[in-house]
């Protein structure tokens, strides 16, 4: 199979409310930075993928807002709706199909312009569920409870994730919430929906991220060392929360196994040097690490307490601060991929020494219904 690499990354700063930039302005900035990162001209980009969401953007055909900012006029283009990791997947297939030498993938969102509770309430079934008033936070809170009861994880365990990630963000100039906080600070923060405190939840954020993917011949001619896309897979669990065992993540396990197989990884715990996982809520980092096979079930909390997931630990996780430190939905997975690229190039703000292989995970739906798993490598 043809090899595909990420050759350029560009990110805007993640902010609570970007008053001066509209969608297209953010996407232009991210695209411009990604082009500059690898020394490409927009004319040389083979095709364009947008990751966007009509609900979050308050706009039908939300990709239409950003086409000009991606230089779309002379190119083939498409749009995936959902996390940017899925957009990157589609961008990769358009290279592997032999159609294009390179793909620009952008993701954007402005949480500041809408009401996240109402937007995520619309993920629930209109006939059986929606009018009850449940949303992403309350839906995930039920999962957090189920996970606690299945594994014995505590509010303190969840709080440690938040403490670590906000601390990692202190070295990331693009993060929205760099904070030096304690476990007690998290536990003292407002209770939103039991067992999730305010500091267990990611913030509402604005931001855009762009990646440029390219085939081997193109990648080798560009400015930066290519980071190879070695494995990818995605998988969805059942829709209704009550159809699922919320304490487990079988769809993530299946996606991870397939992505590892594609990448030739037999022992992820040993072969993965750094992980970027979708920590929309603190507890999710623990659950997803277990789903990814990077900790035994119910044991991620112990590794976390032992410092294994710190930047200096055995398996650093969310080295740029994760989504708890800034969560522009849709773009989020692309930000995680961009951080993995920077780690594997050796240019990260919290550089993990000798990082060669990274895993990245993105999520669609409530409580991790559908996951996309990537394996990236510098070799």
């Amino acid at each position, binding site marked *: *199979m*043809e090899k595909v690499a990420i050759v350029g990354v560009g990110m805007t700063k993640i902010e609570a409310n970007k008053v001066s930039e509209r969608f*297209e302005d953010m996407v232009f900035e991210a695209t411009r930075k990604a082009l500059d990162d690898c020394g490409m001209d927009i004319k040389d980009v083979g095709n364009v993928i947008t990751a966007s*969401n*009509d*609900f979050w953007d*308050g*706009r*039908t*055909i939300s*990709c*239409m*807002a*950003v*086409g*000009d900012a991606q230089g*779309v*006029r*002379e*190119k*083939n*283009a*498409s*749009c*995936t*709706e*959902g996390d940017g990791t*899925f957009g990157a997947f*589609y961008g*990769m*297939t*358009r290279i*592997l*199909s*032999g*159609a294009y030498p390179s793909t620009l993938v952008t993701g954007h969102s402005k949480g500041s312009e809408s009401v996240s509770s109402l*937007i*995520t309430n*619309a*993920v629930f*079934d*209109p*006939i059986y569920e929606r009018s009850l008033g449940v949303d992403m936070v309350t839906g995930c809170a039920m999962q957090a409870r189920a996970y606690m009861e299945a594994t014995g994880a505590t509010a303190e365990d969840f709080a440690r994730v938040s403490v670590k990630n906000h601390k990692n963000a202190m070295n990331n100039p693009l993060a929205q919430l760099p904070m030096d906080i304690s476990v007690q600070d998290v536990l003292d923060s407002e209770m939103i929906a039991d067992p999730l405190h305010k500091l267990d939840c990611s913030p509402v954020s604005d931001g855009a991220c762009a990646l440029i993917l390219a085939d081997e011949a193109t990648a080798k001619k560009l400015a930066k060392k290519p980071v190879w896309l070695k494995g990818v*897979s*995605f*998988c*969805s*669990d*059942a*829709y*209704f929360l009550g159809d699922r065992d919320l304490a487990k993540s*079988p*769809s993530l396990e*299946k*996606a991870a196994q397939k992505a590892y197989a594609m990448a030739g990884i037999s022992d992820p715990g040993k072969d993965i040097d750094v992980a970027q996982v979708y920590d929309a809520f603190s507890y999710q980092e623990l659950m997803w690490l277990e789903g990814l096979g990077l900790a035994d079930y119910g044991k991620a909390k112990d590794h976390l307490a032992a410092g294994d997931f710190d930047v200096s630990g055995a398996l650093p996780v969310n080295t740029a601060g994760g989504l708890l430190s800034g969560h522009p939905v849709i773009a989020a997975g692309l930000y995680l991929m961009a951080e993995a690229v920077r780690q594997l190039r050796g240019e990260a703000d919290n550089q993990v020494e000798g990082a060669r292989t990274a895993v990245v995970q993105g999520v*669609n*739906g*409530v409580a991790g*219904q*559908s996951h996309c798993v990537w394996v990236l490598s510098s070799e």
Partner: protein
Amino acid sequence: MGNKRVAIVGTGQTFHKSHRPDVNGQELINEAVAAALKDAELTMDDIDGIVIGNMDHFEGINYVDCWSVDGSGGFMRPIIKLTTGGTTGSTLAIGGYHMVASGMFEKVLIIGWEKNSESDTTGAITTAFDPIWDRLVFAGAIAGLAAEGQAYMHKYGITDKDAARVSVRDRRHAVNNPHAQLRKEITVEEVLASPMLSDPIHLLDVCPRTDGACAVIMASEDVAEKICPVPDWIIGCANRHTYNYVGDCNLGNIDSMRCASAELWEKTGIKEPRKELDVIELYQPYSFAGILWIEALGVAEPGKGSRYIWDGNTDMGGELPINPSGGVIACNPIGATGLIRCAEVALQIQGKADARQVPDVNLGLSTGFGGCFWTDLILHSKQKPE
């Protein structure tokens, strides 16, 4: 072409209607999926991945890829959502093509659907346009189309009677298609007598609102011929989503289609589309487009599209039949519409189009239209590509 050659090996459609109160969205989707699996003689266990799409604000459901799994078969499978407005259906087909061509998936299920009866279509489509510059002065899709029609009329001197001839053709063809929503013939006089919606567009010049779903199964060259005696090979795709603002559009001269078709003909070595193509399923949401856009495709010379149609060339039995299915004027479940065009050409290639079959189809074109005068194109062939 790609890493793997790709063919359509099965298609399924619902019987499209103005309202489907007997099913919710997931159940509607399931009807098309079950029909496509049956057509290909496959089961859900054979499917490696799913591509699904619609337009969010028509049903008001966020993350349709996640919500739909009970109907789509997405439980514990890879499912991804693509959406690009009116072009969604064709965008889905192109997505399925790349997934299979990449070599990562052997058999992909592609689903386009819409329940337009569940919302205010015009209210929802108006939100496609820029909230500050365009939205307040833009009343749904029809205003933009009317502007295009007017620009063309001004340039070439055609009339609404010429456009009506296109509606008459498509509605006559729809009589042969059991899946079409509007299956009653109309006359030029009836079109001209129907209410004027937005000058020069009459009610019978435009598409209806429809509830419907379509599913297509694509397979790689490794298995396509084993699944299906006559696979419909996809030999090229091209698209342009050129403009973002209505005011930028080169009205009456659809740039996206001219550029995308030029690319497609060049990539596939088509010199004379009018002579080489055997059938077109054109995503033609209003009658005037039936004239303008065949010129953009290079089928008719600029200004000569109307004459070409009056001479019967695009009717069943003509030189190049267009929309044997009855097209979009007879049926428009928006997120499915582009995929229905693709599925209908597949049926033509496979010789399975029954009463709407065009004889001896070797090469067919399906198109998608949407967004801000955007175009998707897919070229289908009975011959396996080199």
